[in-house]
């Protein structure tokens, strides 16, 4: 018996019709967020299994794997299912798997210089590393990007972004510069910048082809233009995709849509799920208009338009805010949205943070709200804001969880400690740690060592880049102040590092981290002992360093020798490496109030009872990031050649983007929205962003209407 047909899952008739469509039918399902589309999709998968479709022939295709979580959860909950495994894929995972599997069939034709060697797939951090190697000399020699005032890593990441967009949208990377120039260049200087960006993209592509490197854009192009053309690859993927479920296609890109279009031709059955009024991942290539074309390839069109989540007031709030921002979005509903809106104005930012913690405490304590059903959202989540909120909630005994995809690994205490000790243990790098780093590392590495004692140890025993033994502290009073127990631990740490320095050969950097972790820091008396967070961060650092080494192991075949450890540490220092791995998403399943950027919350596609929107005066709610070298609209499929991007376009898009975001958020909220507002921002500036303006406009209009009634 499959769960979908058990009484415990209550599906509406419309959902049931979608789930139980014939096994040779192709359905296009469209509707607003929280109308039960994914539930229908989940029920469809379970129905397919119940009707005997082999699990290996079912493919669930999503724009981001977190969106597949309801499917995975439901499949795991099947207590009596026996058989194979359903596949879950994104365009990125599928392209990488397919290129990896069929590489030797296509490497030559795709233009790689070493088609008999293995491919090297690059994570974003490695793309940045290799891009620096490939184009930095060019940039320096040619004085490229001279008028752009942003740092090199951000500059390079925009070149990568351009290449990814070209691959996702389906135009050659040689057109990046001309598209940007014709739409955006307002003067000679700006035209030069786009030409520089074009030159760099082509140089990086040549470099990849000559070193067997595949960044995301090249993986996608090789998959689309070469692998997918081979009969072996087609047979394999079509065998895995006789039954297709594609959820959230509006958040996916034209490359995904082209593949789905092909698979729709060959599969037996399909369910394509489209969220109307969404498409908020445009900055990652989402293209709702391209997605909509898939509807023509389906036999049946179904719609689910009633929210199963939001209360009347929340629903009205979302639609009225969106309608105020953009006429193309939902029409205003009749209900009064004000009961769903709770706010209090503050002068200073910390007052707002404190107010949020008190409100959450009240909801949990007095209204029996589950912490899991509360989210605290902001356009960006700074360390200070995250810490202030987490601290305020923990002091009140409320569990907290947080997820920031772009947090740099160097900012994690355990990683910072390992990196400091690596610098200390490799004096030939000539990167001696600062006193501040040493104090921090000693505190983190030696259990029970406080900052005062760590500073004393550093002042007395850190000399010329080396840690001296504890018996160099001559004064007995000072030894006693440090305590002999802590002194003994310090000695073990110093001896370990000095032994390594004096040893015969240096370890690979990831092996060094593992040896230090297992041989010392995770032992009783040291800071990482029995510490889950430290273990996880250390493992992330090891994984990242090992990936780096493996990529360069192969690479050294074609190029000069590199000091891997030194290059790796420099790369982490630049903040290139993020502490983001799948396992962290799994950890997110834990209990607690979620503190996250608004878009990160949307990616989990999970409704909650209460949402807190913070910093509502911030421009960050509506403005795009400052990215002078790239542009999500000009590099989209819908952009007309020769058209010019104007400030009016920017305003219109800002309003539309915010409108879609607010709709998406309110449709994932059951009971109420709390607005966190302070006149002065975190950094002390007055705030008058579009979200604040829109909310004030709505409240004024409602007050006016009330007076007229």
């Amino acid at each position, binding site marked *: 018996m499959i769960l979908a047909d058990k009484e415990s899952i209550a599906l509406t008739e419309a959902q049931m019709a979608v789930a139980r469509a014939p096994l040779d039918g192709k359905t296009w399902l469209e509707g607003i967020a929280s109308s039960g589309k994914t539930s229908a999709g989940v029920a469809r998968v379970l129905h397919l299994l119940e009707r005997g479709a082999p699990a290996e022939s079912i493919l669930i295709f999503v724009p981001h794997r977190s969106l597949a979580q309801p499917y995975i959860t439901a499949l795991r909950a099947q207590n009596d299912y026996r058989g194979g495994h359903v596949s879950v894929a994104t365009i990125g995972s599928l392209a990488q798997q397919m290129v990896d599997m069929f590489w030797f069939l296509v490497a030559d034709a795709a233009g790689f210089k070493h088609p008999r060697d293995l491919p090297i797939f690059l994570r974003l951090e490695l793309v940045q590393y290799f891009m620096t190697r490939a184009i930095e000399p060019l940039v320096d020699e040619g004085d490229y990007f001279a008028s752009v005032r942003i740092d090199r890593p951000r500059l390079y990441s925009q070149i990568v972004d351009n290449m990814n967009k070209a691959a996702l949208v389906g135009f050659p990377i040689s057109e990046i510069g001309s598209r940007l120039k014709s739409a955006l260049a307002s003067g000679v200087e700006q035209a030069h910048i786009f030409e520089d960006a074009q030159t760099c993209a082509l140089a990086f592509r040549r470099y990849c082809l000559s070193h067997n490197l595949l960044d995301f854009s090249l993986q996608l192009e090789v998959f689309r233009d070469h692998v997918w053309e081979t009969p072996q690859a087609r047979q*394999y993927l079509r065998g895995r995709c006789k039954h297709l479920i594609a959820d959230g296609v509006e958040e996916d890109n034209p490359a995904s849509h082209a593949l789905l279009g092909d698979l729709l031709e060959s599969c037996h059955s399909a369910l394509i799920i489209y969220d109307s009024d969404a498409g908020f991942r445009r900055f990652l290539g989402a293209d709702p208009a391209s997605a909509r074309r898939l509807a023509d390839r389906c036999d049946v069109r179904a719609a689910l338009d009633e929210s199963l989540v939001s209360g009347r007031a929340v629903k009205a709030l979302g639609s009225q805010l969106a309608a105020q921002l953009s006429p193309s979005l939902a029409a205003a509903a009749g209900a009064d949205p004000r009961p769903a809106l709770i706010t209090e104005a503050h002068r200073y930012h910390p007052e707002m943070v404190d107010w949020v913690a008190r409100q959450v405490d009240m909801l949990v304590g007095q209204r029996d709200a589950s912490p899991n059903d509360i989210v605290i959202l902001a356009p960006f989540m700074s360390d200070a804001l995250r810490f202030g909120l987490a601290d305020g909630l923990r002091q009140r005994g409320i569990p907290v969880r947080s997820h920031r995809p772009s947090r740099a690994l160097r900012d994690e205490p355990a990683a910072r400690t390992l990196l400091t000790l690596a610098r200390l243990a490799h004096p030939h790098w000539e990167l001696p740690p600062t006193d501040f780093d040493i104090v921090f590392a000693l505190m983190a590495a030696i259990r029970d060592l406080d900052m005062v004692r760590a500073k004393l140890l550093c002042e007395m025993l850190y000399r010329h880049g080396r840690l001296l033994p504890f018996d160099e502290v001559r004064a007995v009073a000072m030894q006693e102040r440090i305590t002999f127990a802590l002194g003994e631990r310090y000695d073990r740490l110093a001896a370990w590092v000095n032994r390594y320095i004096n040893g015969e050969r240096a370890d690979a950097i990831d092996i060094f981290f*593992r040896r230090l972790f*297992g041989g010392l820091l995770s032992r009783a008396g040291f800071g990482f002992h029995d510490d889950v967070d430290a273990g996880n961060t250390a493992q992330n650092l090891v994984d990242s360093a090992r990936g780096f080494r493996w990529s360069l192991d192969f690479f050294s075949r074609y190029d000069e020798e590199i000091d891997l450890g030194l290059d790796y540490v420099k790369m982490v220092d630049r903040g290139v490496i*993020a502490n983001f791995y799948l396992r962290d998403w799994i950890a997110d399943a834990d209990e607690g109030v979620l503190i996250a950027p608004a878009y990160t919350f949307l990616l989990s596609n999970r409704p909650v009872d209460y949402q807190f929107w913070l910093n509502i005066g911030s421009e960050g709610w509506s403005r795009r990031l400052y990215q002078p070298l790239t542009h999500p609209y000009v590099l989209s499929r819908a952009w007309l050649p020769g058209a010019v991007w104007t400030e009016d376009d920017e305003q219109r898009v800002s309003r539309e983007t915010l409108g879609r975001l607010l709709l998406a958020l309110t449709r994932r909220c059951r009971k109420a929205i709390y607005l966190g507002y302070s006149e002065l921002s975190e950094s002390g500036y007055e705030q008058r962003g579009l979200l604040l303006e829109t909310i004030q406009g709505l409240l004024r209009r409602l007050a006016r209407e009330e007076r007229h009634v």
Partner: protein
Amino acid sequence: MSLNADFAFTQGSLGDFAACARRFELRYIKRMRYPALEVDDPLQFEERTRQGARFHKLVQQHLLGVPAELLTASLADDEELARWWANYLAHGLIDLPEARHPEITLQAQLAGRRLVATYDLLALAPDGPAVIIDWKTGARVPSQSDLRGRMQTIVYRYVLAQAGAHLYAGESIPPERIRMDYVYVARGGERISFKYSTARMREDEALLSQMISAIAYADGFPLTDDLRRCRFCSYRSLCDRGEAGRLEDFDLDEVEDEAEEILTLDFDQIAEIEF
């Protein structure tokens, strides 16, 4: 803290429990990751693990239609791997049924829990034999009795009998038709086979049920008394159980299935990191 309701047991996790209940608790219940070294020569260990993983991928590529000559041409830099590959081409697929499923995962249910097996290769013929192939790249061939008692032998045959019907024309596979072959490609393709039977399946079911229930209802997860089992465990430092073991004493074949997870890079993050 207890085991997640949807936890999937595998031969690896059951093997961990059999070796040390504490290790099981740390790895699967607390999900604590501890990157200490397993062996005294980590680079050599890694190299062998990577070779093993590459061999498994070569076979999969071959079975999905990539011509053998192309794959052979890619091995010029690795004599040992080329030798394993040649042994596979010469002996690996002899007498196997035609319906072949490389790298396939099946799931059965036992004691209210999921039991999962990922096979290197399943080769089946309707109404004929159902053969499990497990490629081994280690140089040592264990004794028949050691292999018979391995959790892998027990779990793989049981799961196929319980969950392989859809690969067998929709009919349950009679245990008597199931055979498991360990193929030692570093030893000229030497093959050690284990037949299956209904009686054996019942015994395995009783053993696996007992283990799963013991884990599900455990009051505690004690540390093993057998210090030899700690030699290659990454939680050694947490439990204060000595130093990393010697590579030459380590049986690499036991980690082959886990190696794939270790070696799999995560590419989905690429498009998701905010620039």
